[in-house]
Structures are given as structure tokens and as C-alpha cells.
């Protein structure tokens, strides 16, 4: 029988969309009856959410956009797509 240690890796795979098929079913069944692993899932989700809220870490300077624009001949894209969430 699997114990919590076996599911810890599966929790991270699940959150990374790398868990498939019956392994998802098994993990969800385990989470139903294991508060400790649910807590672990929440902690992992919290870390990922925190990181995603910090996206993007850096904004490309306008001067670089212009340089690349000159190379590619592109129109400068909408900068708001790169803005961190308000």
C-alpha cells in the first residue's frame, strides 16, 4: 500500500499537468482521505500562485524592443501583454 511519501511526487506532477490516467484517480482518492497531503497540495499551489503573480520578473526595456524591431521589421506588440497583474 502506498503511503504519503509515495504521493508527494505525484502531487507536484499533478500540479504541473504531468500526471496522467489512473495515477490521477489514485492521487485524488488519496487526497480525499488524507488531510496532510491536501495540506501539501495547498502549499505547492500557494508557491506556484505566488510565482505566477510575480510574472513577468523582468520587463524588456523599450530600447531593446526597438532594436529587435529594427532587426525583424515587426510592429511593436502591445506592452500590456507583458504587464504584471494589477
Amino acid at each position: 500500500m502506498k503511503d504519503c511519501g509515495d504521493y508527494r511526487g505525484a502531487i507536484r506532477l499533478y500540479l504541473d499537468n504531468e500526471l496522467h490516467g489512473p495515477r490521477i484517480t489514485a492521487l485524488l482518492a488519496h487526497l480525499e482521505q488524507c488531510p496532510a497531503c491536501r495540506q501539501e497540495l495547498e502549499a505547492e499551489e500557494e508557491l506556484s500562485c505566488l510565482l505566477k503573480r510575480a510574472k513577468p520578473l523582468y520587463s524588456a526595456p523599450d530600447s531593446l524592443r526597438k532594436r529587435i524591431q529594427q532587426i525583424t521589421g515587426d510592429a511593436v506588440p502591445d506592452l500590456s501583454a507583458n504587464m504584471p497583474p494589477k
Partner: protein
Amino acid sequence: MSSEQNDLDPAGGASVEYLGALYNYAMILTRNQAEAEDLVQETYLRAIPAMHRLRADSNIKSWLFRILRNIWLNQLRKLRTDPHIVHIDEEGSAADEPIDPGKHSYDAYVSKLEVKQVRAAIEQLPIEFREIILLREFEELSYQEIAALLDCPAGTVMSRLARARSKLRVILSSAIAGPVPSQGQGAK
């Protein structure tokens, strides 16, 4: 080349679509604005003439990341044979700053503070951890895509990612109020 993904005339908009992602990757690798900008520019200079050779189902972002990474690795090799002092921007310049979402909003203040803390925490990580956190958490590449980019087995991606997250959690828990629980907390 008929697919949407690879409808990439060098003059088309798709070629700058990844500029932000490339710049972030370059900053994570170099931690230096000027070097990051040069790295991104060099990536475009090499990528554009080669774009017509891409297959229709090619993953453009991964391909661009690979070019950028190869350029960076070559630069590192050159530095080893031609050593000189490399300046690292510890604080970053104004151009690096995330765009301010609104100076008079408390939420915006918290958000900006959080971004700074996360960025500072990531910058404390060793290079291989910074890189894998960026590729997975920020760029959302799959394990397979990361493995191909880093030229390592998927198992290595998983274990490195786990170690990187664990270390990042420790750093963040001491930096941010409302600590992020440590790995293994509550384990049976």
C-alpha cells in the same frame, strides 16, 4: 509552412511575440541587463535567417530558448579561456523594474513588493535552479520540453525542479509574511 505556429515570416509579428520571455530567460541566466539585451539581440540575429528551416509543428519558443541558451553557453566557454571580471547588477536598473501597476493603490504596493521579493529569492538560487524555475513556473514548458532544452533526462528535470522549489520555499518563507509551508510539513 501552413500551421499557425510556424507561419513565421521573419517580418511577421510572431517573431517578437517571445521577446519578453527571451529577455526574462536571458536575465535569469546572466543577471545583467546589458548582457541580457545583447543575448536576446544575438538570438534574433541568428534565429531569423534560420526560421524558414523550421518544421510546421516546431515549438518556436523552445527553439528560440535553445538558441539563446547555446549562445550563452558559448559565451561562458569563451570567458573561461579569456577570463575577465564580469559585473553583475545586484539591484538591477530602472529598466528592469516590473511595470508599476499604480503607485497609489495598496494592492499595487503589495503586488510590487511581492514581485521584488520573489525576484530577489529567485536571484539567490544557483543558476541551474533559477533556470528550471523560470522554464517551468514562468514559461510553463513541459518536463519533456525542458529536458530537450537542457539536454538531460526528464527525471533530472523532475528532481532538479523539486530541489529548486524546496530551496525557493525556504528563502521565500523567511522573506514574505504568511510563510509558505516547508516541504514535508504535515507528512505522515
